């Protein structure tokens, strides 16, 4: 019995110290973002180009195909795209700190190494929610309408997914830290196929069967579908699949990321 409670106590202590360490890393990561909120706009250039130049084309060419308002189909896409760009590139920040020595210094502190990853990944939620809000607000005058409750759930889903992609991006940075150019090669190579095979830019229903089959294995496709439904205030089964895909991405991302981080000294 005493053994059990001693074990329980140490578990509580360990969890508490992990939470404290994660809080320190998170606060450190957030400080530059909060000091310069406009920095989140830098990551939005590409999605805004798609929104401004691709969106009108879409409205003209497949206004009927996606049913109803094109914006309610395309704005959720752009929101996911922004999250994807922002979180998949975030590893480059760590890569920079790996090169300068800032990361090494933290490895010598008593911080739990897992907190170095968890804190960084949790921070991703802040810019991604900020960016999503900017896009939604910008599109209101153009006729984009959304359900408030569904919209909040859509942001929450996005945040979970973003933590997962962010973690994977950090894991990639740690894996290629001795050949840093590999980071962008891998990131770009994975990003665009994942985007196209998610039906984010154009509906896949018009594509060949093999593309639709690949999309079935693409977690991003489920997240995009769920985002569209949630912003519209609808709750079909695809919302559940979206949460499952985002949750799995987060679990896999954090697991891989923490393992890479713990080994990052060698």
């Amino acid at each position, binding site marked *: 019995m005493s053994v059990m409670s001693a074990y329980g106590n140490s578990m509580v202590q360990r969890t508490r110290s992990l939470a404290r360490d994660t809080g320190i890393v998170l606060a450190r990561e957030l400080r*530059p973002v909060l000091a310069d909120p406009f920095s989140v706009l830098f990551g939005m250039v590409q999605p805004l180009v798609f929104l401004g130049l691709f969106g009108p084309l879409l409205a003209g060419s497949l206004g009927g195909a996606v049913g109803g308002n094109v914006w309610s189909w395309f704005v959720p896409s752009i929101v996911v795209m922004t999250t994807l760009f922002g979180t998949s590139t975030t590893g480059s920040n760590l890569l920079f700190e790996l090169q300068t*020595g800032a990361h090494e210094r933290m490895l*010598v502190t*008593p911080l739990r190494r897992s907190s170095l990853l968890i804190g960084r990944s949790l921070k991703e939620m802040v810019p991604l929610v900020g960016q999503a809000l900017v896009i939604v607000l910008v599109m209101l005058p153009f006729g984009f309408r959304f359900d408030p409750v569904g919209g909040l759930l859509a942001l929450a889903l996005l945040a979970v997914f973003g933590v997962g992609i962010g973690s994977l991006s950090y894991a990639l940075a740690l894996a290629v830290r001795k050949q840093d150019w590999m980071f962008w090669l891998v990131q770009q190579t994975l990003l665009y196929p994942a985007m196209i095979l998610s039906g984010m830019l154009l509906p896949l229903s018009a594509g060949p069967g093999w593309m639709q089959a690949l999309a079935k294995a693409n977690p991003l496709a489920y997240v995009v579908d769920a985002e569209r439904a949630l912003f519209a205030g609808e709750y079909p089964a695809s919302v559940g699949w979206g949460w499952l895909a985002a949750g799995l991405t987060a679990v896999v991302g954090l697991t891989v990321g923490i393992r890479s981080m713990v080994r990052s000294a060698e």
Partner: protein
Amino acid sequence: MIRTRALTKDFTVGKGRVVQAVRGITLTVEPGELVALLGPNGAGKTTTMRMLTTLLAPTSGTATVAGFDVVADAAEVRRRIGYVGQGNAAGHNQKVRDELYSQGLMYGLRRPDARRRAGELLEALELTDLADRKVSALSGGQRRRLDVAMGLVHAPTDRSGRPFLLFLDEPTTGLDPHNRANLWAHIDRMRRQQEMTVVLTTHYLDEADAMTERVVVVDHGQIIADDTADALKAKLAGDRIMVTALDPGRTAELADLVGKLPGARDVTIIRGTPGNGSEQSTTPVTAANTVQARVDDGPAALPELTIVAHQAGIRIAASQVFGPTLDDVFLNLTGRSLREGGETDATESQS
């Protein structure tokens, strides 16, 4: 403070090729010492330091730092050491004061204490005016001072006897002479104010010579000498003399005479402009044919040489004595000069 026994580290590079970066280092450092690890690039200095700071696990051997094993009790070691690595510790998009504050929290200080400590260190390292600047806007010297400040956040501020050990990996590399002197003045003052042990690596010979109390010479992953700089120079290197014959044709004869001086060794004839390899670059000895040698007592040897040369009818155009340097020590130990950079080994910068 530090006790290592037969510490080794192997790196696997490429396909199965193993580089033995550290091959059996046994070292004891007592509390309060200021020790320099000196050696060429690739000698294993940094790898040794990375093992002592828990960044790398040793391949074999043991190391106890501040009373704890670097592998089994890494967390306890980390609490008791400060580390200033080769790179910059502060994140470039962070503000100076924020990084010091975060660093304090990382070492377990409470928020108000971390804030107060950040203020103290900004003051101590003359960074107060830069507190709200971004790290990326600092000059190299300012960044290095910030690195040292960050290594000291959790140093005891009283003489409580709590052990504290500061590791500095090439703290002054890349700094201009003014900034180097300035950084050393800060480190000196810190050591007077609070009890601490300092272990540093350097490849600046003059720095190891002038600033540290004990020099551990490392080469090919092993300790080849360990003493005070003065003792090393006295034991392992004599004075160096350079003499130039007025008539270049008699240089060989002059060399014979030099060879008969007490303790003369390494007698060589330098052709062309002699590169004496020391700071005195405006040496008067610039003629084509110069004899260089090592003797026991340079200042006494020269007048004697002048007399015997005169008797032999050789006129000496110029002469000079150099006191021994740590480079001479290294040269004597290894046959290579530290100044030529030794051989560079990839393992030093790796990982």
